[in-house]
């Protein structure tokens, strides 16, 4: 039967091919679009996952000062952000909290000999590596002893170390940051080269590969809480006790339960909103919602193109039925039942749509492969997108083939035979 269908279609090779083209493009676009969409959202989700679904990040932000007082305040020190007291309050009152990681972030320069690089000083506690998933590549990370005795030690990111020490082993060398010298005790590698979490007022991520980690205690004794930036004709000082606090919870349920109490706790002690929450699990959910909408839109566009392809098939099959009325008459006279005629035309339509579907799948898998090869976009061809696209193309064949086939079968054999 399939053999017979192919034979009839081969009678008009070009026409059959053009008819299939609609389905080929439809299926191909479904798979390719979903693969690209999936790849894009996968990257975003990976970045969010790195923040840890069990974590809540509380970050200090400079409150939007009202412009009228801006001038008067200029010479004063901007005092804002989360305080150590806040951290103690959170520790004492938020349920389900397993660990709290305070951090100070200071933009400065690091020097070794004559080599100088801009860097970010991260003053934190020894379990930083556990919570952020930072990998130690050489030496060790900070220890409680370092923190307790406020020792002048530091850990560099591997990228920064290779820039600072092109020719020698950085371990046990001393680098200068600010006014002090720090002994390099280890090298680490961050999980990403960029911090992709959304930041207010910044379009690109914050680089993570030029960090210097020092004990929190050391930072307190070296810098105090006030940092001063002097530029040509400008003077900026700010007093921030903690730039960021990462709260690690036991599980995601605890995270969700903690968000509201955290908010009310902090808002009680902060008149201006000089802090923000980043809840990775919520971001992840939001990303998933966005993805779902995205997929729905892509899916609709693709479904429409498949529909158009299906209409093309129906159009051709109706023309074919008219053209082959006589053949239908002959077959009916020679003993074909209505059912046989329906089957014959349905098989032809299915050969067109499934054949088109198969070619479309091949292209649909091939296109994302090429996209990934020739651009830096990531693509993921999911099994279900292939299954859905192929399934729809087969369904289109049945739906749009049935009407022409029934019309063919319902022709009166006498009239059909007389048809010229």
């Amino acid at each position, binding site marked *: 039967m399939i053999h017979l269908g192919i034979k009839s279609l081969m009678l008009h090779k070009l026409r059959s091919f053009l008819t299939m083209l609609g389905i080929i493009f439809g299926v191909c676009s479904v798979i390719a679009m979903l693969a690209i969409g999936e790849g894009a959202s996968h990257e975003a989700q990976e970045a969010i996952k790195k923040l840890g679904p069990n974590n809540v990040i509380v970050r200090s932000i400079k409150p939007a000062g009202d412009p009228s007082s801006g001038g008067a305040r200029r010479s004063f020190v901007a005092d804002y952000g989360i305080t150590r007291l806040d951290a103690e309050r959170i520790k004492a009152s938020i349920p389900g909290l397993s660990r709290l990681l305070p951090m100070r972030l200071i933009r400065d320069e690091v020097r070794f000999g004559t080599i100088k690089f801009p860097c970010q000083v991260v003053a934190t506690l020894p379990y930083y590596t556990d919570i952020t998933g930072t990998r130690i590549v050489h030496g060790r990370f900070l220890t409680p002893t370092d923190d307790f005795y406020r020792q002048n030690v530091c850990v560099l990111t591997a990228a920064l170390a290779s820039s600072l020490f092109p020719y020698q082993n950085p371990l046990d060398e001393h680098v200068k940051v600010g006014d002090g010298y720090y002994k390099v005790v280890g090298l680490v590698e961050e999980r990403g080269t960029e911090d992709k979490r959304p930041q207010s007022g910044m379009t690109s991520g914050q680089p993570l590969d030029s960090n210097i980690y020092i004990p929190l205690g050391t930072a307190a004794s070296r810098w105090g809480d006030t940092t001063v930036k002097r530029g040509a004709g400008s003077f900026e000082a700010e007093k921030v006790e903690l730039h960021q606090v990462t709260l690690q919870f036991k599980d995601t349920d605890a995270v969700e339960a903690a968000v509201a109490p955290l908010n009310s706790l902090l808002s009680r002690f902060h008149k201006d909103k000089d802090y923000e929450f980043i809840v990775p699990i919520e971001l992840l959910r939001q990303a998933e919602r966005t993805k779902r909408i995205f997929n729905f839109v892509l899916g609709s566009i693709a479904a429409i193109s498949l529909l158009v392809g299906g209409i093309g098939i129906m159009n051709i099959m109706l023309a074919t039925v008219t053209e082959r009325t006589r053949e239908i008459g002959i077959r009916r006279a*020679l003993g*074909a039942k*209505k059912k046989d005629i329906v089957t014959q035309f349905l098989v032809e339509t299915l050969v067109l749509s499934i054949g088109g579907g198969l070619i479309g799948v091949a292209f649909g898998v091939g296109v994302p492969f090429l996209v990934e090869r020739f651009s830096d976009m990531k693509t993921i061809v999911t099994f279900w997108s292939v299954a859905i696209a192929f399934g729809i193309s087969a369904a289109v064949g049945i739906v749009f083939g049935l009407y022409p086939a029934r019309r063919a079968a319902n022709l009166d054999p006498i009239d059909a035979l007389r048809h010229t």
Partner: protein
Amino acid sequence: MSGKAIVRIKGITKIYDLGEVKVKALAGVDLEIQPGSYVAIMGASGSGKSTMLNILGCLDRPTQGQYFLGGLDVAHMPDDELSNARGKQIGFVFQSYNLIEQLTVIENIHIPLFYQGKSLEDHYDHCLKLAHLVGLGDRIEHRPKQLSGGQQQRVAIARSLANEPLMILADEPTGNLDSHTGQEILDLFDRLNAKGTTIIMVTHGEETASRAQRVIRMHDGKIASDTINPGRSSIAAN
């Protein structure tokens, strides 16, 4: 002359309802056809000859009356069974050959078997034998377009024999052929009839009709005359 007639028609009428007017194409026809006979049906346009052929070929159902085809009451059969009866009991030969162009000669011969659920693989020898019978044993892989009119009609005849039907129903089989080729086709019919095949042929031509044993002339939806052809009666007696 009765008992095992393959076609037994009693009081058949066929009325076409065209809305305002009703056209009576057949007005009470009785007919019996014995196995092995060679019958020509003649008549002018509008005499009911085509309607007669359609009903005989189970392509149409009579408005009234009875039609037994080889013992089967086909007058009021449902569509599927009627298709089956056509496929099994009747071999059609048409004026314009009506081969299916995308199929080869042997595949065309196989079509009636196909609709009886018999595969070409299993019945290849049978189909090949039929192709040889009509003298086209060396053309089985050709397509209809590669054959002459006479050859195409031979394929059609081979096809009509595929299911070993009760009778061959030929509608102006020589109408599209030149007289020489027409004679060849009629010779083929003679040979088949001599071997016992029942043939019913609708024709305009007196000369063509003269090949048959029995000539039925129709007029105004009725049988006007039903005569035994004197020149052929000797063969009929066989």
